[in-house]
């Protein structure tokens, strides 16, 4: 018997409706109601999504699990989805995507786990500095990687490393719904000491007889229920009936490629759902222009000529707003959502973040995506 999905979110309460009303918005003037709410408590807001860290758990050496309390602007999420999280580092706001690990539901308590990447600015900052009281910006819940509302009878959840977060959300959600169908949870980690959510998983498996936990510690053979990296023979041993299951997997590109091949070989692609955590690429070292520019709002793609984005956009037939064309008036400011640019005024290379840039003085270095 399949459990039904949780109820849709309740209609907004009276307080939220008053705070979000047009009258109050008019009285508050240009800053809006949120402009005043945030002065009372930084996380407060009815339009701007924000969350306050209520706990920061560091159970493994290179990761931190954050419990967040989202404000009234939060509209909920479905298990497996991710959010853009914004954190301020030395005055500048950086945005990264993280999958929500908590069970999906109407509440405003969220959980995510951040693993420090060797050169990651934000991940290292959070792992070192996240404390209760810190306020983070949130985007809306995004992503198509989620279990359907009509819950599948049989599930196979596969993850490696920090890819455990979205499937953890799926597992918790299904358990909270008292899902009866069988769930096999296959997780790859280097060793037990670095396995995120190890204790929670063991508790869940102990309480829910329909959940089967299979861990493979790739650098500690024998420590888990399976050994080594993913292979088709390993899969056949762990879950012989996998072809009948809806499979959700999240992890590094190598794992996902192997899964695609295995499922593809049996014509089972439709049953395999993948989420990729791809780390950002660094800018190419050479001075020769390379890469392409994607003007996201117009759907136009061109080869990078090395000229400033304003000129390249104009050559491509777009007419972005511009003013002084020398980096002073900020009329041409727009959002770069991916890639690196060089500021010709200072000679400096930008970061890879989603950020505002002045296109009259920014030349792309490699692939770039701009909101134009």
């Amino acid at each position, binding site marked *: 018997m399949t459990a039904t999905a949780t109820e849709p979110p309740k209609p907004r309460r009276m307080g939220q409706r008053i705070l979000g009303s047009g*009258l109050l918005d*008019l*009285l508050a*003037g*240009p*800053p809006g109601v949120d*402009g*005043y709410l945030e*002065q009372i408590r930084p996380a407060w807001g009815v339009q*701007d999504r924000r969350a306050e860290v209520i706990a920061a758990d560091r159970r493994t050496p290179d990761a931190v699990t954050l419990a967040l309390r989202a404000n009234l602007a939060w509209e909920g999420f479905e298990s497996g989805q991710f959010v853009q999280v*914004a954190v*301020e580092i*030395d*005055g*500048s*706001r*950086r*945005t990264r995507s993280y999958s929500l690990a908590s069970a999906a539901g109407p509440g405003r308590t969220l959980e995510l786990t951040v693993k420090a990447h060797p050169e990651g600015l934000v991940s290292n900052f959070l792992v070192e500095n996240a404390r209760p009281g810190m306020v983070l910006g949130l985007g809306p819940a995004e992503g198509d990687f989620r279990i359907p509302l009509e819950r599948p009878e049989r599930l196979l959840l596969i993850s490696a490393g920090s890819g455990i977060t979205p499937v953890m959300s799926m597992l918790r959600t299904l358990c909270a719904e008292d899902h009866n169908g069988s769930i096999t949870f296959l997780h790859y980690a280097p060793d037990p000491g670095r396995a995120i959510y190890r204790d929670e998983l063991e508790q869940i498996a102990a309480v829910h007889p329909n959940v089967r936990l299979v861990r493979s510690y790739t650098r500690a053979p024998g420590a888990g229920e399976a050994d080594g990296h993913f292979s088709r023979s390993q899969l056949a041993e762990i879950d012989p009936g996998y072809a009948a299951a809806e499979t959700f997997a999240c992890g590094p590109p190598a794992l996902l490629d192997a899964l695609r091949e295995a499922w593809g070989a049996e014509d089972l692609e439709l049953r395999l759902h993948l989420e990729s955590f791809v780390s950002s690429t660094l800018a190419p070292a050479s001075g020769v222009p390379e890469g392409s520019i994607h003007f996201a709002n117009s759907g136009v793609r061109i080869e990078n000529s090395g000229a400033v984005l304003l000129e390249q956009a104009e050559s491509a037939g777009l007419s972005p707003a511009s*003013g*002084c064309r020398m980096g*002073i*008036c*900020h*009329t041409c*400011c727009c959002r770069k959502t991916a890639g690196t640019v060089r500021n010709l005024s*200072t000679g400096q290379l930008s970061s890879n*973040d*989603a*950020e*505002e840039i*002045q296109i009259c003085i920014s030349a792309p270095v490699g692939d770039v995506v701009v909101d134009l």
Partner: protein
Amino acid sequence: MSNTATATTAIPEPSAATCGAVDKSGEIRLSPEQLDALGAELDAIRQRVIDDRGEADVNYIRRVIKAQRGLEVAGRGLLFVGFLPPAWLAGTTALSISKILDNMEIGHNVMHGQFDWTNDPKLSSKGFEWDTACPADQWRHSHNYLHHTHTNIVGKDRDIGYGVLRMSEDQDWRPYYLGNPLYAALLATFFQYGVALHDVETERIAAGETTLKEKRDVLNGIWHKVRRQTLKDYVLFPALSGPGFLFTLAGNATANLTRNLWAFTIIFCGHFPDGTQEFSEEETADETRGEWYFRQVLGSANLEGGKLFHILAGNLSHQIEHHLFPDLPANRYAAISIEVREICERYGIPYNSGPLAKQFGSVVRKICRLALPDRGSRKLGRLAAAH
């Protein structure tokens, strides 16, 4: 030479190598090499500040915002009991300062992109809207782009006179200008609407260069903004005050008027005191970086005062530094001004600075003087004497 950053720091004598020459008409001239060197020195200051920007700057603007929001709430709250004279006075004062801070230290600076580097949507120049009749997007166009690029170029910088006043000898005299002082008084009183109408370019419509029809989108934008502001200050808050509605109405009107007069005063001191220069389109064609910086200094004037004065003036009291570096955080201008002053001394460039009363006095005299037709040479008295 001492390195302490005080007003009594010894300033080096201008040296023959860097100092500009004063020509026959009394104007300062720098050679191309001098201008390049000037450009490099100022670029270095700019880069240094950009590299140093961080938490302290964003904390500063957030403290100002916090103060402004507090004053707004206090002002509105006190005016609800505005039938008590002390409450009316305190409330109107608080609201006046709130509007002044919102328009000047916060609004003007944020919209210049001074905090775009924070990637905080609340501090984004593109998204910001301010508590005044002028729609923010129109102001960004007429100010950030037009005024700052073409600063003090007659015929291109429409801030010279705002289309209604004669503020330069280079504007040909007409009998209409006999009313200069009256127009200035009216502009000051209704300044927020004067600024709002800036992009309508009424003087160009009057001259037949454009039509009202072409300005339909601009007028639409102004109408929507003015409507919201009017509803807020002159309909809704008074209505919510019940029997005390007249006190609220009067308080809000007085706060708007106070903001208008203060903003007009500070802004007009920026480019019109004695000694500031205007330029022609010919002499500014194909400007180099050094020449652009040079024109910004000669076209601007500073006001002297304490820290609180500078905050209330939106740091427009550091007009020279603002025109050299419009998109650097304004809280940095005071420190930068010490270096800029030193550089100007070395190059022999006049640095126009004075107390509010003196600078505004010279603006008022200029408005009255230009109401009458010119007598004698135009170029006389245009050069600033070093103070």
